[in-house]
């Protein structure tokens, strides 16, 4: 079998802050080139921890206790900081969650969009400027010259997220980690941004890990999905298959819990307590 593009095998991590409470329990997943995999789960399920581990930015309170993250044949967890930092931002990039705080309020868009290009690709000021213009056009920003000169506070939330998407794709990374990129946006903008991310991913042939808690978003954008609960993989597979014929009772309950356009009057069903009890029993936790 050939080496996959990205594979996480048996990744386990504990929190040093909570007396070694496990955060990830033997998580495995894989991603092919150009594939979009959704990481879904409730708060604390470990989806963000996996994203951070991929980017090498785990908080110092989180300790990896086992497993490997292999990206194009290299184990990211055993790389030296210098090698890791060469990959991050260049081969692997991030679309952050909150466009309000992810752009530096004190710097113009141009300098934030171009300093990766200039530092990592050695582009001249002019070349970086031209590339930044192209990128902004690609994310459907209408007046790119003006936006380049603008400060973040002069842009709307949707515009800022477009800028951040442009920045994430600026260096032609092979893998983009999207950390709930639409959570902080209002619903009408969410759809556009999702479509944009999907479009960018397709044109660039980028692999993507898409972290979300929204199964509706998964249905729109992900080829495959991994469902997590309390740091453990509950169910994984092609999106259509998992959503149409969920195997695990938790997945079924989650799908039933979501609001539906076709049955707006139906009450929102919480996941039954019995299912949480079952999950805990499976994992051997109280």
């Amino acid at each position: 079998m050939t080496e996959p593009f990205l594979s996480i095998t048996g990744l386990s991590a504990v929190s040093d802050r909570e007396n070694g409470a496990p955060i990830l329990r033997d998580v495995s997943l894989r991603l092919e080139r150009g594939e979009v995999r959704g990481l879904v789960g409730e708060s604390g399920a470990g989806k963000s921890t996996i994203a951070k581990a991929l980017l090498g930015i785990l908080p110092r309170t989180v300790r990896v206790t086992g497993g490997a993250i292999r990206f194009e044949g290299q184990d990211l967890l055993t790389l030296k900081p210098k090698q890791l930092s060469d990959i991050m931002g260049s081969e692997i990039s991030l679309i952050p969650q909150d466009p309000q705080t992810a752009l530096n309020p004190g710097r113009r868009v141009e300098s934030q969009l171009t300093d990766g290009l200039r530092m990592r690709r050695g582009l001249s000021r002019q070349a970086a400027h031209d590339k930044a213009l192209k990128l902004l056009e690609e994310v459907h920003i209408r007046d790119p010259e003006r936006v380049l000169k603008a400060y973040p506070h002069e842009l709307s939330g949707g515009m800022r997220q477009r800028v951040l998407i442009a920045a994430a794709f600026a260096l032609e990374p092979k893998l983009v980690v999207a950390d709930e990129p639409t959570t902080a946006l209002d619903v009408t903008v969410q759809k556009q941004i999702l479509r944009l991310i999907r479009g960018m991913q397709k044109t660039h042939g980028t692999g993507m890990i898409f972290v979300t808690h929204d199964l509706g978003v998964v249905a729109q954008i992900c080829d495959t999905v991994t469902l997590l609960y309390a740091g453990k993989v509950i169910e994984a597979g092609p999106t259509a298959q998992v959503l149409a014929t969920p195997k695990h009772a938790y997945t079924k309950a989650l799908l039933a819990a979501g609001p539906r356009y076709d049955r707006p009057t139906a009450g929102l069903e919480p996941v039954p307590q019995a299912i949480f009890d079952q999950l805990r029993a499976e994992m051997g936790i109280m």
Partner: protein
Amino acid sequence: MPLILLSALNRIALAAVTLFGVAVVVFVLLRVVPGDPIAMMISPGSTPEQIAQMRANYGLDGSILSQFWIWLKAILLGDFGTSISLRRNVLELLAERLPATLELAVAALVFAVLLGGAIAIIGTLVRRTFLEPVLDTVNGTILAVPDFVWALALISVFGVFFPVFPLSGRVDPSVQNDFFTYFYLIESLLTLRLSAIVDISSHMIMPVLALGLPLAAIIARVLKEALLEAMVQDYILLAKLKGKSNLRLIMQEALRNAIGPTVALTGVQFTFLIGGTVIVERIFAYPGIGNMAIDAVINRDLPLIQGLVLVFGALFILINLGVDLLVAAFNPRLRHA
């Protein structure tokens, strides 16, 4: 643009009102508190007639209101009166002494900003190492010692035990002869007079340290706090992913957002520093307006005190104006407001 002009005019009008208020308070206070300038001047055995004559000569025999009116009219025409103790034109005295204090205060400010900024940046770099508490403790100590104690400590160390710096004055008489202005340091820097630069700087080092060290510690503390707050923002994370080193993250990303509150606070503290020149100039016998203010008060030299207080008031107002402009310059969100 007209909005900016309007706000500038507004500030100037406000400054004029503030200065007028300062003038009223000082003028009235000086005449209400006990102490009589004439009593300082009369020779023993003067007759009441002679004293009354002298009082009339200095215009001190009228009511406070009429005295104030005369003084205000004269000031608006640029006449600050004659110093009672020094028998010289007050404006001339101020023009001689103010440059000395300005050079000292600005040098102390520059020193404080550089040292405080360096401590804050290093403190952020060594975060979570054993050096952080060490640096914090040193900084806290510097902060806890007031300027005049620094002055006395510096004198005993660098003036007495290891006499490397001159104890008093502004410039050695052997150097001072042909300055065109009273900005000795700036002038000798501009004309590249090396011996004068060395001599004036060595006179300034100790007072600058005494005035600047406490301010440096305040700047360090506030700036480090603001830097640490900025360093946990998402934009820092993204910049880190782009491969920026910690130093670059601080200098290129965090500093510009952390500097606003520090500038505002430094402005306020700078006015305190100018107040501190009074005692520090006294200790080092430095010929600035602060030192002159003490003599003026001791001698009940009303015209000189009034002139000095107006100058101090104007300085404070100018500093506050400058701070507002600087804060706006560092914060793009305020620039258009």
